[in-house]
């Protein structure tokens, strides 16, 4: 098709044309003034003056005829589909996302004569809707402002119309903005934004709308959680019970706090104080007991991961008698400002005779065993039992609680001595299940043979002993005797073993690490690690090997990343019902097979699932964990022979994106209104206006109306005529 238009001569600069226009206007003003002075023929003077001015103007501008021949193409229309995970909320028999994608397809048909591009918006750059479109999404926000900015301020062809398909619960622009505020959050453009509302009806839904923590989570310190609950869609709510639980390994969830939320105008909140005793990644569930009629159950609870730090490492050190080994450990622990040490040493037994009956002459205090191992036990990060007889000092009755303490995340080190392990009455006790070695009271509880512990293969690979090996090499000092212990428990790791004694076919463990539930434990069947400083070998390293050993042991016990065999993270957030991938980066030097044991938290006796892959020479390895359900999980990762590292994570179906299921049709209407667009439901989308087509030129012809000499002649004649009339009118 062709299109004709008119223009001025192309050799005339625009500034010149403007100057000429100004001169023409001045001429006309002067003409009017002159005409008033004329005695006669005023009308003729006026007409001839106008004609002369016009002809002069045309002689300079020399108009041309422009004929453009080309093809008409459709205008560019961009459809932005909300790609947030929120749109996975159910809608009828499908989801909002399915409806939105269907609407986008329908828009392609509606704007048949336009060039339609369909993108998803959410977080970050726009992404194309796949073919077929993805049925899921991992994006948690709906930032329309950012998406529009990318479209309208980028270097590409600007669309003539934008259509937003969403439920309106956008991250930006926010809700309840007035017209002027809404304008400021949208990019400045004349492009109309039409909106297609996926749904206008809120489902009957009670949900955990928001969980806010007041400050960072610190072990043993109260943490205030503000929990907002909402009821929407006409669901009748009065009081909604809320419970906060910690999901632990191998045990049922531990209730941290409970409360009731009074719902007024569909919303309510409650402040709950919780105490997380263990540092590290802790998985907490905040759940409501939703009233009957709740249509969306998946947002009735949030499963959150809290990174719990500790101000200081709080340790309980209990020793059955004072020795150089006790002194050395105490001195080392006290030298660390980050350790809050509570120590109890038995300085006098029932058979000792202090030489006085007057207690005021002694500085001794009763060993508060009951108080320590009941009320105060959870407040400690780890317990060190050093050569203390459980029977003589009435510790035996607290051993089940101590085992439960370890299983709920506490740390335990049993240090050797005549009254440790079987010698202290621990064989056959409940604590046995929390220790990494078995104990038997059928043998002599300790051995008098001098021993130089041997590194096992695992011990050589373990980061926990790396510093000791760097200082002393593989040759450790000689120790005088050792406790008699049984074989390592399944899953435990032996780092040092006895070079001469056997248990079954294996060398007797001297230093072993183990996991019990959420906690870790260490069994050290030697009573004189102070010899890592106070011995010929120890002195060669200026005594530093002692600190290196205990720093490693405590660090491993407290899950210090420096002593873990691998760095573990999720390649992306875990969403229930979708594939999850674990990213494992072995620490330098660790090679071999990577074995992951995945276990559900908060479930008693949950069977671990094993996944494995070969470690690379360097870099990380991605291990698919398959599709997981809602809950907390722990992944125990072992790289080669190194001790396992652990990573806990939460898996939710909707997460924060599902916390508020209400659509926001008003926001969709406001956006359309302030941009001169139109808002419609899916059913009404055919009412959206069609933008005009655009002509793309293939040929352009420019033809002068008259040759320049003709314009000049015409102008001269008109000016001459005007001069004649003026004379006749008496103006000249």
């Amino acid at each position, binding site marked *: 098709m062709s299109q004709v238009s008119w223009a001025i001569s192309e050799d005339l600069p625009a500034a010149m044309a403007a100057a000429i226009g100004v001169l023409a206007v001045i001429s006309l003003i002067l003409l009017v003034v002159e005409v008033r002075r004329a005695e006669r023929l005023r009308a003729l003077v006026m007409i001839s003056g106008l004609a002369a001015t016009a002809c002069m103007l045309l002689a300079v501008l020399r108009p041309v005829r422009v004929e453009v021949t080309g093809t008409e193409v459709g205008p560019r229309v961009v459809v932005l589909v909300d790609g947030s995970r929120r749109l996975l909320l159910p809608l009828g028999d499908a989801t909002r996302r399915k409806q939105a994608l269907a609407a986008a397809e329908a828009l392609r048909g509606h704007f048949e004569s336009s060039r339609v591009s369909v993108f998803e918006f959410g977080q970050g750059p726009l992404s194309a809707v796949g073919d077929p479109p993805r049925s899921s999404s991992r994006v948690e926000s709906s930032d329309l402002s950012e998406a529009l900015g990318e479209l309208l301020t980028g270097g590409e062809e600007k669309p003539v119309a934008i259509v937003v398909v969403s439920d309106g619960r956008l991250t930006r622009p926010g809700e309840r903005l007035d017209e002027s505020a809404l304008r400021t959050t949208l990019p400045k453009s004349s492009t109309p934004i039409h909106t297609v509302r996926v749904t206008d009806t809120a489902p009957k839904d009670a949900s955990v709308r928001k969980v806010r923590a007041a400050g960072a989570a610190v072990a043993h310190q109260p943490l205030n959680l503000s929990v907002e609950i909402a009821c929407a869609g006409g669901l009748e709510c009065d009081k909604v019970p809320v419970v906060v639980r910690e999901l632990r390994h191998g045990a049922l969830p531990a209730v941290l706090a409970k409360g009731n939320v009074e719902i007024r105008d569909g919303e309510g909140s409650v402040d709950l104080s919780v105490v997380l005793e263990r540092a590290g990644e802790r998985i907490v569930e905040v759940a409501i007991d939703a009233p009957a009629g709740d249509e969306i159950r998946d947002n009735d609870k949030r499963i959150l991961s809290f990174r719990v730090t500790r101000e200081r490492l709080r340790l309980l050190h209990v020793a059955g008698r004072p020795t*150089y080994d006790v002194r*050395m450990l105490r001195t080392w622990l006290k030298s660390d400002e980050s350790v809050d040490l509570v120590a109890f040493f038995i300085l006098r037994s029932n058979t000792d005779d*202090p030489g006085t009956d007057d207690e005021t002459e002694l500085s001794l*205090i009763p060993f508060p065993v009951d108080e320590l191992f009941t009320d105060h036990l959870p407040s400690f990060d780890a317990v060190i039992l050093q050569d203390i*007889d459980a029977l003589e000092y009435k510790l035996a009755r607290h051993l089940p609680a101590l085992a439960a303490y370890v299983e709920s995340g506490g740390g335990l080190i049993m240090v050797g001595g*005549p009254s440790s392990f079987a010698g202290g009455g621990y064989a056959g006790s409940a604590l046995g299940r929390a220790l990494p070695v078995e104990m038997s009271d059928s043998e002599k509880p300790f051995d008098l043979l001098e021993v130089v512990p041997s590194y096992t293969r695992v011990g050589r690979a373990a980061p926990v002993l790396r510093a000791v090996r760097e200082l002393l090499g593989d040759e450790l000092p000689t120790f005088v005797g050792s406790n008699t212990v049984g074989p390592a428990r399944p899953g435990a790791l032996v780092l040092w073993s006895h070079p001469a004694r056997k248990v079954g076919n294996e060398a007797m463990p001297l230093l072993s690490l183990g996991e019990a539930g959420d906690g870790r434990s260490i069994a050290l069947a030697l009573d004189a690690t102070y010899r890592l400083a106070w011995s*010929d070998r120890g002195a060669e390293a200026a005594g530093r090997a002692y600190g290196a050993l205990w720093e490693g042991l405590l660090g491993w016990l407290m899950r210090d990343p420096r002593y873990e065999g691998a760095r573990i993270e999720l390649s992306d957030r875990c969403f229930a019902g979708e594939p999850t991938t674990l990213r494992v980066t072995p620490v330098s030097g660790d090679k071999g097979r990577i074995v992951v044991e995945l276990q559900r938290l908060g479930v008693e006796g949950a069977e671990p699932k094993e996944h494995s892959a070969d470690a690379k020479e360097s870099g990380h390895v991605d291990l698919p964990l398959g599709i997981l359900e809602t809950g907390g999980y722990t992944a125990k990762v072992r790289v080669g022979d190194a001790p396992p590292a652990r990573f806990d994570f939460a898996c939710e179906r909707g997460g924060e994106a599902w916390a508020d299921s209400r659509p926001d049709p008003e926001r969709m209407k406001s956006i359309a209104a302030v941009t001169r667009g139109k808002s419609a439901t899916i059913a009404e989308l055919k009412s959206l206006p069609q933008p005009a087509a655009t002509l793309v030129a293939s040929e352009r012809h420019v033809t002068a109306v008259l040759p320049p000499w003709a314009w000049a002649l015409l102008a001269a004649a008109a000016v001459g005529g005007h001069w004649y009339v003026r004379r006749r009118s008496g103006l000249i």
Partner: protein
Amino acid sequence: MGRRSALLGLAGLGLASHSPAFGQAGAFSVRILLTGGKKLGTPRDSGPARWAFELVRRTSAPARLGSASVSADDPKLLTEPFALWTGAGEIPPLSRPEQRGLERFLKLGGVLVVDDQDPQRGTFGLAARRELARVLPASPPVKLDASHVLYKSYYIIDRPVGRVLGPKALDAIVRGKSAQVVFLAHDLLGALARSRGGAWSLPVEPGGPRQREYAVRLAVNIAMYSLCSDYKDDQVHAPFLMRRRAGRGP
């Protein structure tokens, strides 16, 4: 009781060989520090065994009853964290190896007790201070406050005493937060020395069985300090100890 007997038995074995058994590796042992080749003479050479015996009898701490001595320049000095330097009269200056040995011992965290057998003259004490000033020139001795843990590590004691009453306070070289070299001008070993017949070898001055008992208590406190350092300074003990001191009166 069975374990305790076993330990004493093992300790008895230790008399001959001085090699500890399991449970005894970290046991308290009075090692006599030898400098300039001078050995501990009678009757005080029985003092270390008595010291260990009293410790085992009165407390839960294990101790080795055998007598041991170690030279300041002997690498074996660095195998245990306690040594007693005792003598009377002038001592020759420490050789360079002896200085280095003592310096390493103290830097590892060892506790050295300097006991002047003739505190009235005080020659040994002064000489020891002079030599230790060469080992640790940046750490001069200071007077220990009456609240120092040495006065409450097992017994609550008001002042140090030995064979002689001596000064009312202890001097010490304090490194970090711990008293690493304790100076006694009380002849503690003299108060502990016993003859083969079981009688006390040297009379205490000004005298009385209480003084001997208090000397033994000081020895026990020093041993406890070397075994559990400042344990009795822990906050958990503070209210008990304050009540007990208050209950003892002025």
